[in-house]
């Protein structure tokens, strides 16, 4: 991890700033003082004395990216990932902020666990790590967790992710109760009675492979249920990792009706299809599963028309030994922090979305969804979290160089164009791509005016 502690003043010079929250799209210098954005300066404006300079010539300067969906495995499964290794992978992938799902051991359903996560993150001094609390005690889907206590301890949302909220009754109470603490309920939407035993998308390929399928309908019905309940309660629901055409149709319709619903998609769901499972590669096993081409097209539509609010990684590290089991036995999930931005650039390169929309999906909207104040923007006085992008960077993902403790990715060896090359958290450069050290070396020269 290349960590460079910079003085109190940092100038990101000569870059092209895109900050959708302010509608800014143009050549600006970003001045950071004491961990906050001091202002966006026009080219040629006088730079304060003593500022370190990061030369972003030819690069895009964006608000720090925020991942709404990260599994860090600490406490309980530190052999897969720790908060420190997860945070290192995050900043290497351009994510200044990650929101940690509560399905650790113990589950984050108590202030003690919440505080532990925050303290471990502070020790690591890399990404901002915001814990997500459990919706129900032990994420068992029966009794509500102490959301008020958890909120005071520092959670930013509630979820039983990994498990769906099983009944309409519990979901209703969760939405009603969470509302009192301004917490959004994040649901992993799956009707378990339709997915029991399922290990991949149900369709032609599950029939060919003889693997038990998880039908798209299992996600659709629960998304519809949650939209109906959010409308009935006035509560706020965020649908995690949407993967089906039906889910998007339901969310689109609910938004038209004014329901407080938002949603995220994960890169593997638009990058891969169920055909990729053909060799029984367990690095293709995740929940929800990668689906058929028709669903991928629907995700593109949702990304294009605004139905999709956020891109989230669903980074889910697992040990190689666990992934070396039979397909039925291997755990669900793949890593994603270091590949997500590159795969998001595929969307830009393919003309699905433009760069500004990419930044909205990765920074502006995530901050809004979890009400992360003074983040997701480069507005004056916002936290100085910045992601610097090089849309022209051509690179190949090498899992051997991953900062994550785990190696369970289907994207090893994948060629990508577009990358996050530097990540700044609270005014500190916490990641600089080794091929871009020139950006920092430039600090010895005066900023070009």
């Amino acid at each position, binding site marked *: 991890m290349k960590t460079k502690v910079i003085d109190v003043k940092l100038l990101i010079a000569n870059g092209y700033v895109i900050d959708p929250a302010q509608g800014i799209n143009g050549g600006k210098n970003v001045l950071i003082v004491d961990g906050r954005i001091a202002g966006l300066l026009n080219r040629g404006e006088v730079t304060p004395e003593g500022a370190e300079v990061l030369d972003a010539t030819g690069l895009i300067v964006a608000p720090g990216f925020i991942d709404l969906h990260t599994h860090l495995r600490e406490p309980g499964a530190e052999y897969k990932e720790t908060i420190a290794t997860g945070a290192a992978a995050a900043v290497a992938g351009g994510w200044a902020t990650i929101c940690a799902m509560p399905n650790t051991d113990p589950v984050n359903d108590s202030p003690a666990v919440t505080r532990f996560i925050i303290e471990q993150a502070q020790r690591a001094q890399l990404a901002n790590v915001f814990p997500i609390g459990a919706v129900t005690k032990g994420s068992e889907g029966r009794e509500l967790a102490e959301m008020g206590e958890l909120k005071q301890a520092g959670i930013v949302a509630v979820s039983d992710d990994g498990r769906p909220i099983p009944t309409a009754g519990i979901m209703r109470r969760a939405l009603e109760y969470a509302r009192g603490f301004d917490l959004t309920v994040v649901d992993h939407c799956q009707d378990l009675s339709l997915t029991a035993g399922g290990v991949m998308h149900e369709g032609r390929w599950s*029939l*060919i492979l003889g*693997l038990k399928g998880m039908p798209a309908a299992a996600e659709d019905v629960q998304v519809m249920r949650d939209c109906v309940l959010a409308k009935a309660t006035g509560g706020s629901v965020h649908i995690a990792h949407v993967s089906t055409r039906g889910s998007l149709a339901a969310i689109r319709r609910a938004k038209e009706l004014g329901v407080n619903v938002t949603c995220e998609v994960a890169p593997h769901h638009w990058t891969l299809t169920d055909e990729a499972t053909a060799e029984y590669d367990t690095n293709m096993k995740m929940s929800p599963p990668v689906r058929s081409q028709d669903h991928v097209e629907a995700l593109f539509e949702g990304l294009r028309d605004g139905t999709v609010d956020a891109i989230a990684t669903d980074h889910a590290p697992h040990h190689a030994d666990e992934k070396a*089991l039979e397909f*039925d*036995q291997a755990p669900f999930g793949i890593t994603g922090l270091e590949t997500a931005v590159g795969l998001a650039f595929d969307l830009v390169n393919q003309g699905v979305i433009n760069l500004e929309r990419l930044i909205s999906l990765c920074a502006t909207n995530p901050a809004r969804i979890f009400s992360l104040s003074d983040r997701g923007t480069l507005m004056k006085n916002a936290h100085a979290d910045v992601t610097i992008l090089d849309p022209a960077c051509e690179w190949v993902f090498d899992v051997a160089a991953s900062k994550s403790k785990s190696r369970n990715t289907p994207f090893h060896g994948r060629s990508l164009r577009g990358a996050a090359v530097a990540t700044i958290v609270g005014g500190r450069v916490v990641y600089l791509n080794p091929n871009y050290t020139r950006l920092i070396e430039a600090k010895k020269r005066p900023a070009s005016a």
Partner: protein
Amino acid sequence: MTTTFKRKHLLGIRELAAGEITHLLDTAETFRDISRREIKKVPALRGRTVINLFFESSTRTRTSFEIAAKRLSADAINISVSTSSVSKGETLLDTARNLEAMSPDCIVVRHSMAGAPAHLARMGNAPIVNAGDGAHEHPTQALLDALTIREYKGRIAGLKVAILGDVLHSRVARSNIHLLTKLGATVAIAGPGTLVPEEFGELVDEGLRVERGIEAAIEGADVVMILRIQRERQDSAFFPSMREYAVHYGLKPKHLERAARDAIVMHPGPINRGIEIASEIADGSRSLILDQVANGVAVRMAVLYLLAGGGRAELEDKGH
């Protein structure tokens, strides 16, 4: 047209070309004669070791592979691994690696989970024969069925085949559909909507259709294949009762009136008499159930011969 079989493993029928299937069947035919001789043994695989690694209980398939190996003079070792001992700790991969360390020439694998043989093939070194993996494939069963059909019908191409019953959970049905359609037969499948989902028609590009009632599937059929129904499917709500299944989906003599006059009836076994097939059909003159078993040995001899090293020698050298 491929006239040799150059693959290292036999994991399924889906990935095979028609020529490879025909080559396997032709090879099996030559081995069938050996089983009809007084001395049923040739030295083709002398000094070679075949391990039958069965993670799922099976008498007939395991015995068939064992006899096939022995008739080729291979040393055959049977290992039955109960799922309970696997859950005690050792993974599939570790089990297989331990066996590989003893340098077998071929490992025959039966496993309750789809993809387990493919997993071993990818991670290990020995040739792998899939002897049935979950609901995925059972390639030697399809080959022995095809050998039986060829024996009685003289061909596969152009035949109409009905496959009836629990297609969804059947590796036998999948392997047969792949094989029969690749060789030019048309296949109709039928059974309860829960066990024969409409989407099953997408399994192959052409030659397969899904019928709701078994009568429609049998209409004009040259071959009627019946699949075994398992009681555990009733427990998971795929159908209401064995009684109702027998009434609506069991093959009865009246059904066969719709089939071609010289239609043959097949079943991979073991059969549930009076449930999926009436006894008078199973024991009747059209039933080839025991011929299937006999051909099973010949097909497995061919597969072991081609994969375990015998195939490297000339076919004539095997001791006629």
